[in-house]
């Protein structure tokens, strides 16, 4: 295990779990492979990974840096994050949820859990630059989400057609605190139809 990643910026409550130990997040803190980063309500964390990769972890998120030595494998257990990868990747870079693997090809994208249904939680993914290969784990299903497109993986298992979503225009892709707020106010719950507002008679 080697030190490689830095918690460069945070807002609110950020906790790092390392084995049996728990630390309060601090700016400049070194993160290790296997660390779990947890953000509280109205909180966020900005993490610089090696090779110019940036993660913006939104509030109420649990993210595990599972494998960061050869290929990069991040496990998103709750919440969501923005990923920015500069340049083309020479290794494999995955963000996994419980049921979905998002393989990155040099890109900028957002992934977050949506509402939870009986069959599982939805997973939303939106690509700002480049493309992302989305694969449903343990099923022979995959597709590529291109720049400007979003996708909802229903209950984390059923791929839908990638398309432009109006809500993605409101995502805050900024990962530089000196250029303005990092807070993303798009709530995945608001992406669902409000059936109490369907009133045309």
């Amino acid at each position: 295990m080697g030190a490689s990643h830095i918690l460069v910026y945070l807002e609110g409550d950020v906790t790092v779990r390392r084995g049996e130990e728990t630390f309060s997040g601090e700016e400049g803190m070194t993160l290790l492979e296997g660390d779990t980063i947890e953000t509280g309500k109205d909180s966020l964390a900005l993490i610089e990974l090696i090779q110019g990769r940036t993660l913006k972890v939104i509030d109420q998120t649990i993210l595990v840096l599972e494998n960061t030595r050869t290929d990069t494998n991040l496990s998103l257990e709750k919440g969501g994050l923005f990923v920015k990868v500069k340049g083309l990747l020479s290794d494999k870079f995955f963000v996994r949820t419980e049921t979905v693997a998002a393989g990155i090809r040099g890109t900028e994208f957002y992934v977050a859990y949506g509402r939870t249904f009986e069959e599982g939680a939805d997973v939303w993914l939106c690509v700002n630059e480049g493309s992302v290969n989305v694969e449903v784990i343990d099923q022979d299903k995959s597709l590529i989400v291109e720049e400007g497109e979003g996708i909802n993986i229903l209950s984390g298992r059923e791929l839908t057609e990638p398309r432009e979503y109006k809500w993605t225009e409101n995502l805050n892709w900024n990962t530089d605190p000196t250029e303005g707020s990092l807070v993303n106010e798009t709530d995945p719950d608001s992406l669902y139809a409000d059936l109490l507002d369907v009133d045309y008679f």
Partner: protein
Amino acid sequence: MNRHIFFLGLIVLAALPLAADHHLEEEQESAVLPGARMTFWTDLNKWDLLVQSGLTYDEDETLSYKIVGGTYYRIHKNVKAGLLYTWDNGEDQLLSLDVTPRFLIPTQGERHSVVSLKTRYTYNLTDEDSSLFLLPGYTYFRMNNRQPRWNVTGAYGLYLPDLTQGPWFHFLYHFSESVKGELKSDFLITDSTDWIYQWDVCLGLILAYNPH
């Protein structure tokens, strides 16, 4: 696309026999009144703005028109209140206050249901008459990719104080977030002793704009 054509056809077919019944029912003093309407709807967060124009083929074989303009405000997650102005065939001018609570009934999978109670007080500015319309209803939504594909509402309408009443039906097909087709049936028993009724059947197109 084929599915869209199928549902459009279904709506038209549903309306045809009702239009044919029109001449038969006229002799019994009951009436089937086919009509069509178009609605422009804008959803501005808590505010909705609407403009609606409609035509109805009356029993005396003339066309009457109606123009409605108004706004709804979401005063609570479960309650919307609206103020509507209606210009009815150039004769009556109506002002309506509408309050409708709605509650979601969670069900499994991609299906959802809503129960509602539309309560509309209407004041006729022309003859200074007023009425209260109550419409308890149940709406079933068929969802596709977490979005409504179509929804159907069954309800029962009651007008006070004259107690005219009857079953009410509304079908809405969501071609897209912006374009919707509707079929409305409003069956009103105006004289329960002689079983005289008025049956409004209306096809409609809704153009919805949601900037967010």
